[in-house]
């Protein structure tokens, strides 16, 4: 149990660098797509992280709504103007607020969101360690004393118990 917590942390830290990429999904139409494949790939990637603000919980990459199309065009326009990913996202955040980001910002207000599950894990792990320490460790068998050995011998001889 002593090894538990460090083991846990090690097991989490290693895969934490690996992020599961999303399968490609699209409502993008051919006439929106940029000619430069690298820019288009960036546009698709950014679109997946932007919420369609008029839809029921979809990204602008997934949604068929007219406003989603407009926003996809805005993203591509910004990228074509040479803006960075962060600047493009910011362009939309200044207009629609943090609501438009599907990946919530990491700020004091959202620390509970980002760190909560890890806190559950570490807190729970710690609680388990404490709980386990309170209960006595299983005693190893001590050898029998002389009197106890004699008792055993006597009982083994007793015909009534056979």
């Amino acid at each position: 149990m002593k090894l538990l917590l460090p083991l846990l942390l090690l097991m989490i830290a290693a895969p934490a660098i690996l992020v599961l990429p999303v399968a490609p999904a699209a409502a993008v139409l051919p006439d929106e797509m940029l000619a430069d494949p690298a820019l288009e790939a960036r546009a698709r990637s950014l679109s997946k992280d932007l919420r369609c603000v008029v839809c029921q919980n979809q990204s602008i990459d997934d949604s068929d709504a007219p406003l989603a199309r407009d926003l996809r065009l805005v993203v591509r326009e910004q990228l074509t103007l040479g803006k960075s990913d962060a600047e493009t996202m910011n362009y939309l955040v200044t207009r629609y607020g943090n609501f438009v980001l599907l990946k919530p910002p990491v700020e004091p207000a959202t620390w509970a969101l980002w760190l909560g599950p890890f806190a559950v894990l570490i807190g729970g792990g710690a609680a388990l360690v404490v709980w386990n320490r309170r209960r006595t460790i299983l005693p190893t068998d001590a050898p029998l004393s002389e009197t106890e050995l004699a008792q055993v011998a006597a009982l083994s001889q007793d015909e009534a118990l056979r």
Partner: protein
Amino acid sequence: MYAEIGHFALILALLTAVSQAILPMVGAVRGDQALMAFGRSAAQLQAILIILAFGLLMTCFAMADFSVELVAEHAATTQPLPYRLAATWGNHEGSMLLWVLILALFGAGIGRFGDNLPPSLQARVLSIQAMISVAFLAFSLFTSNPFARLDPAPLDGAELNPLLQDPGLVFHPPLLYLGYVGFSVTFSFAVAALLEGRADAAWARWMRPWVLAAWIPLTCGIALGSFWAYYELGWGGWWFWDPVENASLMPWLLGTALLHSAIVTEKRQALAGWTILLAILAFSLSLIGTFLVRSGILTSVHAFAVDPERGVFILAMIIGSTGTALGLFAWRAPLLRSGALFSGVSREAGLTLNNLFLMAVTAVVFLGTFYPVIMEAVSTDKISVGPPYYNLVFVPLSVPLLLLVTVGPMLAWKRDSLSRVAGKLKWPLLAALAVAVGLLALLGFAKATAALGLALGFWLIMGGVLVLARRWRGVGGFSARLVRTTPAAVFGMALAHAGLGVTAAGISVMSGFATSKILVMREGESTTVGTMTVTLDSVGDASGPNYQAFQGRFTVREPSIFGADTVRALASERRFYPVSRNQTTEAGIGTSLLGNSYVAIGDQQNGPRGPGLVVRIYHHPLVGWIWFGGLMMAMGGAASLADRRFRIGAPLRSLPRATGLLPAPAE
């Protein structure tokens, strides 16, 4: 006439439920056998009445009786019969009636199959079950009456949303509800245990089949929902972390934790308080899910007609049931006898770790789903939590859990040593590492996630095989006798764990290797996507019973591992439903063991070579493994449920001796 009879049956069911809620509990407290037995009869009567009511509602739908408001709103004369019948639960009122029906069926089941339960426990469980029934029946009758009449009756109805006119609607909601409602039984068991002040091995043995009875359909329901979204929505997405999807995943995760925690309670009489808490939380999450879907508190593609007033009623129900249960827990759980000791390295410890990780993973889904609500209550800033969050947090927390799944069954109960376990796992570990390294070399570091995910899947599948291999290895090698005497539950565990690996492999490969292409095609043109060649053969019109369609017909050619190329004909349609004025896209999907080809047409547009059709082509490797793994898990659960040990019942030793007249049975 039918609707009125149905309505009346429902009212009678409410009255039956009220008496079932009160009398058996009184009987359990007083030791009155007659009152306790009444619980069984009442449960069966309630079930019959609600079956009648539900059957009558379905009949109204089948007959397309538009004087019933619900039918007029969700069925049209041109709607095919299966979808008219499924429309019974394709709406808020009808689905609540389905909920109530399944609740009553489970209650009757406890009465019918719970003969090996001590009468006082059975009576208490039935009573609590009835209290839940009362709440839902009242909700249905007072706020969501499915039998409301429409006067004057229209000549034709509004049809069901075309997206729902699909075999998926026939199976997905009933399976999910069997799961959600099934956890009400374990909830009742937990509360009954708290009331009795006793949660021992026998109680866990009685409860576990019911956990499985809920968990199996929920697994199937979630897998089916994912599959339905995949082929229906037109671009091959299979999970969106939508609030309603999360609402089904959370009870499933806690149900899995409960399943494993109950094993510890059953075998070693430990973790009883924790098992009770999990049982309470699993059903509470079912209720919270219901609240989410119907109250309008969160936007979702799946949301029913939302109504904050109904939300208030459901919130009251949640306060009543969960609040009371948790309060009871705070009061009575400390009095439960603490269980057997176990060392830090043991099967119990492994199962405890399993629970810990499942709680962390449930926390991810819970926080992600409800944080926007919490933020809105405390600040003016509105945020969204979408797939990017879940991908970043859910995956790192679930990987250690998946690694542990293979280790767990190798641990001995009570006390084991790391070196012994490592010895058992030496070869599987080396094999998995070899697979990981090999895949990394083959696929490149850019696809590291997919490679490691596949290796993880391999590790899990091997874990299942290992359980059986170790079991079947007798003194002189493989033993057929050991195969024959293997309990069904061991097969269940192996199958379920392997199924998890199959799903993990499918998810990893889909995330890393799915490809797509979107372009404008004209008739006769071909294009290549990866190793796939897709030709648009022709376009034309098609029609169905209640829709007009524009169809694109394709030929897809792929190299096959068996030698010659596979050639498939696929068709994709854009359907227009005139009654509801809705449009849907049906994709053409070609399935094979190693993946799907997926073609969906869009509108007509101008391309570089003139006017043509927008075509989206996808290649989805191993996507079918995701749902097949789910099916394997469900089958594993079913195998466990079939185990003889549940039917024999708990050892008599654990029962309190009722009288001194019977001699102690030989063990």
